[in-house]
């Protein structure tokens, strides 16, 4: 799929967003992960209508972090960490509403699932 070999490779100077190397970026990610875990008891009572249990919340947080596990670019990791930090503050300060916190949890996704197999898609009409 990739045509990189054929197109001229224009180089770009890359400046660090926050971290200089992967170890530093990893430390930032782990710090963020820890503050999310420490917030779990408060998330439970602040967003009580989601009926989250502690083990479930741990899974939810892990799932959200693991979504970006394939990102290798240090600068992309840094920006994701900053975004996670902003999400955290929004959650901890109760700037979110109950349903707005539910978007973290994939099992609370109310969208109709798209059919996967050929026949199911045929029955749907496309």
């Amino acid at each position, binding site marked *: 799929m990739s045509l990189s070999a054929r197109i001229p490779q224009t180089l770009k100077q*890359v400046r660090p967003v*926050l971290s*200089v190397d992967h170890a530093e970026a990893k430390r930032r990610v782990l710090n963020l992960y820890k503050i999310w875990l420490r917030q779990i008891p408060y998330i439970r009572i602040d967003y009580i209508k989601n009926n989250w249990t502690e083990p479930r919340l741990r899974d939810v947080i892990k799932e959200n972090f693991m979504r970006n596990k394939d990102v290798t670019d240090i600068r992309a990791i840094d920006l994701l*960490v900053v975004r996670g930090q902003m999400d955290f503050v929004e959650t901890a300060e109760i700037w979110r509403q109950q349903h707005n916190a539910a978007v973290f949890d994939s099992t609370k996704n109310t969208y109709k699932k798209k059919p996967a197999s050929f026949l199911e898609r045929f029955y749907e009409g496309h």
Partner: protein
Amino acid sequence: MNSLLLKTTTRLSRINLFSIPQRTLFDVQNVWGRTAVDTQKPIDSSPLAEIPRQDESVGAISGVPREFLKERRCRVFVPARNAMQSGTNNGKKWKVEWDTKERWENPLMGWASSSDPHSSVAVEFASKEDAIIYCERMGYKYEVIEPPKIQRLNKSYGANYSWNKKTRVSTK
């Protein structure tokens, strides 16, 4: 016996739900997590490296839903010439378009509907390379469609009267 057990369990869960004191906005003070991750600018922001432009991955932070980055397929192409008397400048740019998703007729008004945000989007680029770099940085699958080569004939009015250039072929 069974129904009695059911009753007690439901009552218990209800008590549990309301016995947890819910905090209000005013009870939240000093969110210490705000500073737990150091998001200050680095002191030394000298360049890390020089990387090829297309190796930069911006898909994860672009805000595009991640299902789109996985599923969608791009078409890199030169738009067709307008068949009316417009100029040909249209054919000098390259476009990136996404594959089409389902469309349906609105049952009330009969308008065309779609749930696909990419349905009406086409991104323009000055060159093919730029378009490819865009797709690679975003992490889209893409295919490049080269424009067809148009064979142009040199025509001159004088050739009509030349003895050795046969421009008009007799029908007889």
